[in-house]
């Protein structure tokens, strides 16, 4: 490929700047930002993918960082467990073949060569919902699925299985370390990750992905998350806790071979109808504009189900930009460098008002419905944290989210979310009070536990974790406004509804004063502000 990807860009808005694309759930808005005091942060163009991914995988396995080659770690009578990131990565799901399939096939090929018979493959989903057979097939490919699933050697983690989990000990801070028993008792654990954003990977892969409530509660809590720059593991108490748990895992004698990958941000493709979504507005060609107008207006008149399917069926043409394998921490530092190379955009100074157009997808509603709690989590938990250095918005500033925030829930995937929305939020939105009063109830509810284990439901405690995830930004911001959202749902979550962006900007002046500076994060594709 001969294209030369351009880096990200901070555009100062003037009177000639065209309206800016805002994602708005399963739709879009074009918003004119005030000239002279607004700026837009655009992501860099997709980096070139590795020319020969399979060769790169083989090289990474044979020339790992601070570890013996994988082939040297494989012996005929060993117990080998391969764990992989679940349906929450990447977003959206990528076109086949998925990176995980490529890597796990390469690992299994070496295992076959070494004569390893005892192999288990586990979806490391912690308290997420179980992956369906179709989702496993998509992530791992038909060959692995057909070879391992019928015999029960490919399965989802069950973090509530009393016989399937084991406590490895406690960290020096008294945090329990719980882990999937099969993984903990293996001679070698190979973890295959997709590092979509800098929050992923490292010890979080094993310490969280293969763990359960008993251990997760030590970092998935309001206090820890309040002290966490989630996208910078060096400044995140959340990651520190995971790293401490990782230390216990390492000291337990478990040999881990971590394989981390990064992808470019080719979320909507370089051509095709969706490609307009990752182009800068002034560069839209007549064809792009026609595609956008057709899509924009078509989506408006489509029945909700058809509209949902348009997005649900989209598979991103992501390409792998790096793969590194070996010792967990050394590998992860290298991985972070590659994520930064794609996503970081230098930005000078904070802003009074941060605007965020929220798309249709979070890590927790793949093939599902984006309910209001997930809207809050995506805006305040994820997009707010897409910075390095300091937050894009100043302390006490205003965060404006754009999303329909429809109070619809997936009854199979999110049963405890429904109860949380109907029973807890009308009473209080204070995360500390919620944690004190409701966490134990939701975490230990037998019905939620049953649905998590046997159906495709997120764990009972999951909606509370989502609430905690956004708590830091909620506390940090002077006001949170949701544009175009369902008024009842927005108010129930304690936010301010606005019909238009202009209304929202007007409301913001009550908090930050007249003529505030405004910054719009043009995300997705993924972009991370390097704020100085």
């Amino acid at each position, binding site marked *: 490929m001969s294209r030369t990807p351009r880096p990200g860009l901070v555009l100062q808005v003037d009177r000639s700047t065209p309206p800016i694309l805002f994602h708005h759930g399963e739709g879009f808005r074009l918003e004119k930002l005030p000239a002279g005091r607004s700026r837009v942060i655009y992501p860099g163009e997709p980096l070139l993918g590795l020319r020969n991914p399979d060769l790169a995988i083989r090289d990474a396995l044979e020339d790992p960082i601070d570890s013996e080659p994988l082939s040297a770690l494989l012996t005929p009578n060993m117990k080998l467990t391969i764990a992989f990131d679940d349906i929450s990565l990447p977003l959206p799901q990528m076109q086949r073949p998925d990176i995980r*399939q490529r890597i796990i*096939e390469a690992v299994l090929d070496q295992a*076959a060569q070494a*004569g390893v018979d005892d*192999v288990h493959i586990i979806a490391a989903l912690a308290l997420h919902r179980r992956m369906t057979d179709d989702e496993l097939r998509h992530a791992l*490919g038909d*060959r692995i699925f*057909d*070879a391992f699933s019928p015999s029960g050697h490919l399965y989802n983690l069950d973090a509530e299985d009393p016989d399937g989990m084991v406590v490895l000990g406690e960290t020096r801070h008294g945090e329990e370390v719980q882990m999937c028993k099969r993984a903990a008792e293996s001679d070698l654990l190979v973890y295959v990750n997709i590092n979509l954003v800098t929050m992923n990977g490292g010890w979080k892969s094993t310490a969280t992905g293969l763990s359960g409530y008993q251990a997760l509660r030590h970092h998935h809590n309001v206090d820890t998350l309040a002290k966490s720059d989630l996208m910078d593991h060096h400044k995140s108490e959340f990651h520190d806790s995971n790293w401490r748990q990782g230390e216990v895992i390492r000291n337990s004698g478990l040999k881990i071979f971590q394989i981390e990958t990064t992808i470019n941000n080719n979320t909507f493709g370089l051509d095709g109808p969706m490609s307009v979504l990752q182009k800068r507005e002034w560069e839209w060609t007549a064809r792009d504009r026609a595609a956008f107008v057709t899509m924009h207006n078509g989506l408006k008149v489509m029945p909700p189900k058809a509209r949902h399917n348009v997005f649900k069926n989209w598979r991103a043409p992501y390409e792998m930009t790096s793969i590194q394998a070996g010792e967990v921490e050394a590998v992860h530092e290298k991985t972070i460098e590659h994520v930064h190379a794609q996503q970081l955009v230098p930005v000078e100074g904070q802003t009074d008002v941060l605007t965020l157009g929220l798309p249709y997808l979070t890590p927790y509603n793949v093939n599902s419905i984006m309910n209001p709690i997930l809207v809050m989590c995506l805006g305040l938990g994820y997009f707010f944290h897409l910075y390095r250095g300091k937050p894009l918005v100043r302390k006490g500033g205003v965060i404006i989210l754009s999303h329909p925030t429809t109070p619809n829930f997936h009854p199979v995937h999110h049963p405890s979310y429904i109860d949380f929305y109907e029973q807890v939020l009308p009473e209080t939105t204070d995360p500390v009070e919620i944690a004190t009063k409701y966490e134990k109830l939701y975490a230990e509810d037998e019905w939620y536990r049953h649905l998590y284990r046997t159906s495709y439901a997120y764990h009972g405690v999951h909606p509370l974790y989502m609430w905690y995830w956004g708590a830091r930004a909620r506390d940090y911001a002077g006001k949170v406004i949701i544009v175009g959202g369902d008024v009842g749902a927005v108010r129930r979550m304690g936010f301010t509804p606005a019909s238009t962006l202009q209304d929202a900007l007007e409301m913001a002046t009550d908090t930050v004063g007249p003529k505030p500076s405004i910054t719009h994060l043009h995300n997705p594709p993924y972009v991370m502000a390097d704020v100085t």
Partner: protein
Amino acid sequence: MSSEEKLRRLANDLSRRARSALHPQLPFPYGPAQTPKGVESVAKTGSKGANFDTDWARRPSARAARGALVETMMRPAVAVLARPTRTGLDRLADLPEDEPAIFVANHHSHIDTPLLLTSIPEPWRRDTVVAAAADYFFSNRVSGAAAALALGAIPMERQRSARSTANRAAELLRDGWSLLIFPEGGRSKDGWGQEFRGGAAYLSQRSDVPVVPIHLAGTGRILRKGRSMPTPASTTVNFGYPLRPEPDETSRSFGGRIEAAVATLADESSSDWWTARQRAHAGDSPSMTGPEVASWRRSWALGDPGRRAGSRKQRWPYV
């Protein structure tokens, strides 16, 4: 002059007279002039067999006709007769779309070519020519033209190694055409595979084009050698990872790798991917050519061709 020589000349003369009586030739200059005696005649190249001209079948109009034929007739016929399951297409994800490839498959049935022409993914499918036996498909003008038009066939010499057909295939690869070739040289005689010939490996090395190994399972039940009426059956088309020759690899060794890759795919189709990989690494992949024993034992070892390998029943003796 011996009497034997006289008789031979007489026979030749009668034969020539008989031919001219049956095919009267126009007088020169309206017809060809006779080669003077004592002058060595220029060897006729002929227009059949390996010399059959198929250039016309790669012109846009013929390609359009072939495309229509494939989509409107071949594909429905394949769907009914072969009921194909296509697997392993994801292995072609890294195959450059703007470069040709050599598709190599085992061969059991006349349905194999239509099945593959409807299974090879775009963009290679529309620019694929099929290496067809020069002595079988191109033995007369009608069957040659039909094969060239319907299948995009080009003649390939299989009785002896012929530089001309190899040169033509290499030229086509250089011009961006992909090639579908059955290196066994013909359909299976007894249900077992045959040893692969070196043509595909040679062409790949010569033209620097990757080889895509493919295994076809189940087609032997449809229209195998000796059958004239097809029997519908389920089939599997399993694509393997593209192979390229190593820098110092001999054609023979590369051919061996191609054959091994198809054998592993065959094992994968009859068991599963993990088992096939384990056996491939242990060097235990089941042979496609079957045991070297008496023909009845080969036939017996083949089992019931209507079943998958994992559940084969032995035909005879019933014990």
